[in-house]
């Protein structure tokens, strides 16, 4: 005899509920992990750009449409607020005139502020006639549409 069984609505709902719950529980850490990964990727790109003196690569790391605060002691006339394209040209000139011999971000200085700001410092070594110049440079990044972008570059005093 064929036994008719009612569809197990309860178990389907349970499965859906569990899946939803899992999604909610997992979503936040996943999103945070994705942001951390994006930040790490951006910092790697930033480090590569400055180390190799690649202004275009640096331009790809800054805020896409907006202003970037730049204050580099001895290189800029006080604090400057530049557009992204302007920064690319200005840094290309700067890299051409003052050859970069080394750059390293200091991972220990990375700090997050809220959900969408991050600060980090790096050590920039430039060739100069009187010997290499080593300076600490501070970067401020913000989260733009899931991607971290630099919007402040400043020589730390």
């Amino acid at each position, binding site marked *: 005899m064929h036994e008719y069984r009612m569809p197990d609505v309860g178990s389907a709902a349970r499965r859906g509920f569990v899946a939803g719950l899992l999604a909610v529980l997992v979503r936040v850490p996943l999103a945070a992990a994705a942001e951390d990964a994006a930040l790490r990727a951006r910092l790697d790109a930033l480090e590569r750009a400055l180390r190799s003196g690649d202004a*275009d690569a640096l*331009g790809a790391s800054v*805020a896409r*449409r*907006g*202003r970037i*605060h730049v*204050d580099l002691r*001895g290189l*800029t*006339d*006080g*604090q*400057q*607020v*530049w*557009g*992204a*394209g*302007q920064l*690319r*040209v*200005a840094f290309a*000139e700067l890299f051409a*005139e*003052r050859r970069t011999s080394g750059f390293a971000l200091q991972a220990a200085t990375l*700090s997050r*502020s*809220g959900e*969408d*700001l991050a*600060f980090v*410092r790096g050590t920039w070594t430039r060739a*100069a*006639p*009187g010997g290499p*110049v080593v300076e600490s440079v*501070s970067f401020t990044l*913000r989260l*733009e549409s899931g991607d971290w972008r630099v*919007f402040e570059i*400043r020589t*730390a*005093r």
Partner: protein
Amino acid sequence: MTSRGLRLWALTAVAFAAAAAVDLARIATAGPNAAEVARQSLLDGVEARHHHVIEELARALDQVAALPNLATAAGRDPAARGEAFRHLARLRSGDLDLAIRDARLEPLAWAGPATEAARLRNLAQAGAGHGVISSGAALRYVALRRAGDAWLSAERVVAVRRNIRNAFVEDVETLAADPSLVAVRFVLAGEDAPAADPRERTLQAPDGRVMALARARETPEGEPLAERLRRWLAFGAALAAVLLLGAALRTGVSPAALAAAVGLARLLLLPLTGAWPLGEFGSSAHYASPALGPLLRSPLDLGLTAAALAALAACAWSYALARPSLPPRAAIVAATLLAPGALALGAALVADIAWNSASPPEALDLLPAFSAGSLLHLAAGLAWLAALATAAALLAASGSLAPRRLAFVFSAGAIAAHVLLARAELAPPPPVAAALAALAFGLGLRGSLLRGAWRGASPEARAAALALLAPLAGLLAQPTLAAHADAVLLRQMEADFAPRVRELSRWRTHVLQATLERIDALRLLEPGSASERAPIEELAFATWASTDLAALGLSSAIEIQDPDGFVASRFALNLAPLAGPLAPLPRGEAWEQRPERIAIGSVERPVLHARRQLVYDGELQGAVHVWVAEDYSNLPFLSPRDPYATLFRSAPAAAAREREVGLLVYDDARRLVFSSTDPPPVPDTEALARAESGPAPGWMPLEFEGRPVTAWAFPVAGGAGFLYREESALVRSLADAFEAATAFTFAAALGLLLLLLAREAAGHRRLTARSVARAVASRFSRRLFVALIALAVGPALLLQGVVRQLVEERLARETADQALERASIARKAVEDFAFFQRGDYPDQQPVTDQALVWVERLIRNDLDVFAGGRLIASSKRELYASGLLGARVDGDAYRRLVLEGAPAVLRTERIGAFSFSVVSVPLALGGSEPGILSLPLASRRREVDAVLADLDRTARLASVAFLLLAAAIAYSMSRRISGPLFALTAATRRIARGDLAARVEPTTRDELRELVEAFNQMAGELARQRDDLERSNRLAAWAEMARQVAHEVKNPLTPIQLASEHLRRVWADQREDFAATLDTCTTTILRQVATLRGMVTEFSAFARPPEPAPLDLQDVVAEAVAPYAPALPPGVTLTAEPGAGPIVAGDRRLLVRALVNLLENALAALAEGGAIRVRARLADGRAALEVEDDGPGVPVEVAARAFEPYFSTRSGGTGLGLALVLRIAEAHGGGAELEAVAPRGTRARLWLPLPEPAEPPR
């Protein structure tokens, strides 16, 4: 080119070659040491300036030492001291400070902020005449000299600390003309000179003591000779290209060749921008974009590129107008894609200017400064003109489409382009976009009319027409740049400012962390370290100045305690004194951080406080405290309320904006925590709820004192934040656009003037200053117009000056009254405080900084208190602690208030380029002499400056509006006066041409009316006399005609009569040859009758007046030639040259007849065969019918008489054919002529005047 022009160009070329040779020789001789030579040259300059200052100080001391009764002056007698103050004030020049001091170096009389005695003791003890002393941010050269019991000192600031350098204080940099190239290390008096680096130059005092060490900064190595040569060659090539371009423009080359030359010149100019120092024009720090490769790397690059684009676009337009239209399919593509695309590219370039500028240009001053910002505006204007001309060219080439269809496809393309641009944030404001599209369409459709007018215009008129493009460029560029600058600002508010507000606390923590690390690195108070050697009272400021706190200009403070807990050094920016002179030391060596709230009067401010002990080698040396305010007041994007705040900022970016950004912050209980304006705009509950709700912030409208503002709302620490900026009022926007248009016009007028003068100097005759002057002078109306405008300029400028003077005086009076009122209130409060202070703490200063901060909040003005000329308390201690202001009251104020008993003194003080008024009043402090209370009116000065700037702007705009009105009136008046004269001139010309019906309508009621009526009367009289003359001529002509007819008819009658009589005689004689005779005689009679008929026909035609109608002469040719073509004599060919003939007003039948007569003449000349060519053409401004044969030709004497009646060289000719041609030509207002054609043949020409064009409006 004229010989003078050639000489000028030759001179330029020689000068260029000489400059290049000198430069290259300099580099060649410098060889590989070129960089070293440049460095030494820089250091030579520094050393020369050092010696100049030393000599200046020594000279000043000589003058002070030569003062009469110096010993008396140095005494304590008030009258003698007053006299000494006057002398010193007279001797003081520029920034030199002078003082007469007692034996302990305490100033007795001074001019300028004399340095305190303590700072000079090292110098005096060392017996040095010259030395360097440090006072906060400033370093001063001092010359000290003994004069009996007294000391004389002269000093001046030679440098400021670079950490707080900004626009206001950089002008005190004396030794290093360009601090970016030279670094100077100063050796303070009493310090040992450090070992000099081999690259350093030692700067010594006259006694050999080292005062400073100068070193050239790291600079790029010198340019190799080959590179320099390449740059000179590029420069030369560019110069040659520009010259060739000029020559090409004069000789009229094709647009394509011109475009190629323009493009080449631009590319050749490329290497120039990086070759020589071009200041801000060549700096990428002002503007740069990677968009077009190397073409946009600086403001100058952008300007050159925009100019080249405009020139190329002009070529394209010229080319499009000269060529036939595109086929319909290509026309549709051009109208829908290419023309809107050209406008879109222009829009993208203008947007790029705003998005890639350090300060997006918003407004252009009516008299624009020679700056990179002005150049960016100019480039934007040129970019728009280029886009407009290109789009118009494409639309002109699309002329094969019906206008309605063209409008449709172009509009569709333009709208689509605008939507795409808007999505990419590149779109211009919709009114500008609409105006551009309409202009492009109008120019494209009606361009040929403009081209015709252009070709007919004089060079002067063309130049004036080009200059008129300037205001159009301004009207297009300014609103676009302002809109993009606003978009940039909104973007910053959203993405840059809001996160800084939201994360203020964490951001400050980050800055504090960096500061603490920096302080650790400085190793404060470590035995043997540099910090231990520095003057302890300046250590706090020196420390602060070397941290991010100074770099960012944050409200902050640093205090350094000695091991006993006493405050040894303190500096605070915008933070009131935080602790008493004695406070417990921190507990450990590690930094302790905690948030605190410090009370200033009734207000509490949240601060972050960090502190630690300073322990080295296990020994406690002291402690350091750092405070950073967590308030919002000095966020870098807010215009500071404190006028001095700009002195401590490295970039006054906020001040550069046209419209300020405001900030409102509410806490979680919806209490206002911070407002950057007073009173603040008030958001409603819904706005607050929306801002608090997060995480989706957004834009919303608010209202601020009745004016709309756009606010970015976002959550802040459980509360709400609003960043806002005012909407630009329509009137303001219109005024800005008007101002920019005027600025562009002025710039174009200036450029035109320079061009005219240059052409004048080059010896040209057209388009020179003189030719323009002649063009103006040649018309009464123009002279009148120019004279009236010139007359209006004077009163407008005078009125502007008078109004400004009156307003300035009134504001100064109000300021003084207000200041005295505030000083009166403050004096009462301070004196009361001092009274109680003396009672409670008799061993302390009668007034404290805390007390003055409290009074400052009461009167809303900073204040300082001096006793014995020295500062004892200030509500703005940082200005003195940093050394920006000297801690001694102005000598003149001291003399008048203390020594002469004046009730108040108003004077001006200066910190670098920042100047402000100060009011000082005497103050009872219970001492032997009154103290001084000073109120610096820096805020008021800022308000007054803002009012005056607004007034100046308004007055300038009003003056221009007034001049425009004057121009309109002048134009109207000149029209009213010269209009009737033009009408009279035109009517006189008509009369000269024989049109005696010409009359002028009187339009005025003055003397001109009488003139017009007299003219009309004269014209009427002339017409009447001509009618009479014509009547008598007609009668005479009839008589002549009758006589000629009779004469001519008589000739054939004779043979007829003779033949008839002979025939009758033969008949009567019944002769046999009757039949033959009959035949002969009747033949003769018939021939004579035919002759008579011909004569009658000719006379009939001769007498008939023409009936003119519009007529194509080519049709006349066709009609005349047609009957001959099928039956030409053998060996004769007849050719009618094709083409559209000129249109004339003529009688078709008469002209055909005249042409037939000419043809007949030609045929008669070609008895041996030959070719006849007939044509209708325009020649020398006339229409002509020509018949040309290659027959034997006509002698000159025959040609001269050929048109006389009855003159004929042919047997059987009536002699009336050519006379009739002439008669017909003259009846049409024309003429006829015969001329020989080389190598053989004759050309007969009948010419007719062209129809008169409509009288142009004047």
